[in-house]
């Protein structure tokens, strides 16, 4: 039998053993594998769903993907317009239908293999392959037969389904890519910089299938390599020494910190554990009036619209006068001054100001007198007999405040009663798609700097329409505009379409244009330039040396 002393000693040994196991566990798990601090730490919005250019859909994901995979063009850090990237130059046919890109001869994957024209062709066909199920495959529908292949259509001439080789992208030689378009797409070069059209490593994907991104040694052709990606922790990237412009890269190691809590983002930023906050949703809007006065808060015009949709299939919103009455009685100034407070511009039209080669027609401003008159004409004088209706929204604090404000405005100006239906995000999306709403809060961020990215949403067959409105003339105007090479004529056609959207038919009621918000200390960080797309290539950013 053990003596009391022996048992005391053995229990001490056990305790010591347990403590050392716990310490080892803590150091293994709680301490970062790569202990080195990054040169730049960016709070980037929610956790990336993927880093596969064909799969991603969010801005946060695309910021990282653009560092890893490059397309034929890239966006300039200052102007956010297309400039040569993988393609050193290009020629456009006089009718605007054929683009010939000359690839750089010194572009290589980070494993040393050359990036060739066939890689571009394969990457684009992969996006369009129905089996890839790429949400953003529509970005390539401007290429000949791309839509037909992606949606599994049958070729009327041959009676067979369209296949990958029917898509209008070819590699005549190792360093030339030839693209045939459906129409002269004015923004095609900007589109080539969109992450969906980036080039991916065919040899790697064919070897590893769905798991290709997470295999160590992932070959990339962007300015950075993927070093580490742990969900809800960080994505660490390191400068790619084999990139053709490796000497332009100003921060060698960069951490993207995924974040969904504005409070935590602010804590990290003010305590110096993060250098930049990039995602607007991570700035607490309730503190915006205080934060805007800080030297690290930067706001600027942004290519995004905040609006609500009418469900025109439901009474009484099938009546244009009713829709107009509701739109005319919104005092937008109260919303941007009291709720959003980040310097947003009032929106009477849908396409944000500053969009390239475009100027919107005049929309409807605040005019409660005219609103009451229209409502009376529609058979509801002073709101009498107007049925109670619902405003569908997701559960974001700002949206809740805006909807309460709208509710109060409509009750005061028109005497109508609105009920707010706050839904969880997925329910909100599902209900919106099924047209299960009267009015629905909405927003749209442009994918590229062209009015088309806003206006084509409301074409009859566009899945983003979600209003029940179908108009052949509108569809024809957008189609015709995208066949134009003449900038002024194209602008005119797009203006006519927008006029239908915001005035003649009033399918959507714009409220404000988003402001871009970036947090960084200009004394410490350089290389961030403000532009409409909130586009800030990471390679151009660095911390200033003291």
């Amino acid at each position, binding site marked *: 039998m053990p003596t009391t002393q022996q048992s005391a000693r053995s229990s001490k040994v056990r305790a010591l053993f347990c403590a050392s196991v*716990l310490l080892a*566990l803590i150091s293994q798990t709680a301490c970062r594998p790569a202990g080195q601090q990054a040169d730049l730490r960016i709070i980037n919005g929610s956790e990336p*769903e993927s880093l596969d250019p064909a799969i991603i859909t969010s801005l946060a994901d695309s910021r990282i993907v653009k560092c890893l995979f490059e397309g034929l063009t890239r966006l300039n850090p200052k102007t956010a317009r297309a400039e040569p990237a993988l393609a050193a130059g290009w020629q456009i046919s006089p009718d605007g239908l054929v683009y010939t890109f000359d690839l750089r001869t010194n572009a290589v994957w980070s494993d040393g293999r050359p990036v060739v024209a066939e890689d571009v062709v394969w990457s684009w066909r992969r996006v369009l392959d129905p089996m890839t199920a790429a949400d953003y495959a529509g970005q390539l529908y401007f290429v000949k037969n791309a839509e037909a292949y992606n949606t599994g259509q049958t070729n009327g001439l041959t009676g067979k389904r369209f296949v990958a080789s029917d898509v209008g992208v070819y590699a005549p030689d190792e360093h030339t890519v030839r693209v045939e378009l459906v129409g002269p797409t004015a923004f095609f070069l900007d589109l080539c910089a969109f992450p969906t059209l980036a080039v991916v490593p065919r040899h790697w994907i064919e070897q590893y299938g769905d798991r290709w991104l997470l295999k160590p040694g992932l070959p990339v052709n962007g300015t950075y390599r993927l070093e580490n990606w742990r969900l809800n922790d960080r994505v660490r990237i390191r400068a790619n020494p084999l990139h053709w412009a490796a000497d332009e890269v100003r921060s060698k190691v960069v951490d993207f910190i995924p*974040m969904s809590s504005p409070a*935590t983002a602010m804590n990290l930023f003010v305590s110096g554990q993060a250098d930049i906050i990039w995602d607007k949703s991570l700035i607490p809007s309730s503190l915006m009036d205080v934060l805007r006065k800080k030297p690290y808060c930067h706001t600027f015009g942004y290519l995004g619209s905040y609006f609500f949709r009418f469900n025109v299939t439901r009474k009484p919103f099938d009546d244009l006068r009713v829709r107009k009455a509701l739109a005319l009685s919104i005092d937008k100034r109260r919303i941007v001054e009291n709720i959003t407070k980040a310097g947003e511009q009032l929106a009477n039209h849908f396409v944000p100001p500053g969009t390239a080669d475009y100027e919107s027609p005049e929309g409807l401003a605040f005019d409660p007198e005219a609103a009451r008159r229209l409502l009376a004409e529609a058979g509801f004088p002073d709101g009498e007999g107007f049925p109670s209706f619902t405003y569908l929204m997701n559960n974001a604090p700002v949206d809740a405040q805006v909807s309460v404000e709208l509710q109060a405005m409509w009750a005061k100006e028109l005497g109508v009663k609105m009920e707010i239906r706050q839904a*969880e995000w997925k329910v909100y999306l599902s209900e919106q798609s099924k047209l299960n709403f009267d009015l629905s809060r909405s927003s749209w961020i442009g994918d590229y700097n062209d009015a088309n990215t806003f206006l084509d949403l409301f074409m009859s067959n566009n899945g983003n329409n979600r209003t029940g409105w179908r108009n052949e003339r509108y569809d024809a105007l957008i189609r015709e505009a995208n066949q134009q090479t003449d900038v002024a004529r194209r602008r005119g056609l797009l203006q006519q379409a927008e006029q239908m959207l915001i005035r003649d038919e009033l399918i959507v009621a714009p409220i404000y244009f988003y402001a871009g918000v970036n947090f960084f200390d200009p004394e410490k960080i350089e290389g961030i330039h403000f532009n409409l797309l909130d586009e800030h290539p990471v390679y151009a950013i660095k911390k200033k040396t003291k």
Partner: protein
Amino acid sequence: MYFFRRTLFLIPLLLVISMVAFTLVRMAPGGPFDKERAPASPEIERNLKAKYHLDKPLPVQYAIWLGGVLRGDFGPSLKYRSHNVTDIIASGLPITLVLGGLAFAFALGVGIPLGFITAVKKGHWEDHVGGTLAILGICIPALVVGPILVMFFGVRWKLFPVALIGTPMHLVLPTVTLGLFFAGRVARLMREGMLGVLDAEFITAARSKGVPERDILLRHAFRTAVLPVVSYGGPLLADLMIGSFVVEQLFRIPGIGVFLVSSSLNRDYTMLVSLVLLYAVVLLVANLLVDFAYGLLDPRVKLA
């Protein structure tokens, strides 16, 4: 034999739990691939569903998933499409376990002595102060405690990092935030247990035999008084081991607690059902351990 039987019983129980979870999650409106931006064509969504077997009848989907689980593969995450659920759990679980373990140690390390002292010093100032602290710990939720700790210890005094992981120092504030509530509960349970035992006849008998007070309290009273804490320890351990959404979110800790909530919001079916299953396993095993601990601590309990 007892534990063998109990373990065997877990299997049908887990099957039922996973089946119910698998069915319930599908009843929520919306799906994993609903996005603000609709896919370019309905064909894309159809392909996406086919790729993840969501176009098949529910029993078939369940069978496919269960087949994977039996092979140790929980399937792909429907939200984080480059990752599979097994990898996500393997990456996050150790962190959650460490944080949960630390919070458990904190809860017991603070709660048991606090409860013990407040009981022994009943009616004295130690009792009032300790009791107030325990009540505060229980009443103030982590959602409030966390930001207050961060504001003072992280932002103002810069004693600890405000979020993320990296060094053991990063775990201090999350541990306290997570453990404080449970420390309060443990302190209350311990105090009640001690007060009940100190009036028991065997304590009076021991006192009358002249057993030193220290031995009475530590050797005799404590062992019996701690039993309610042990009972509570099972679900407590399970709760802590599966992680806390609030604490992991607030301190940006890459554990699995965040996923339990986010996967249900994202309709990440595979992830959610896998986590529910994991939670069930942890809870059932923790309860089994509690029964085992009872057998060791209380001679009246025999596990046959």
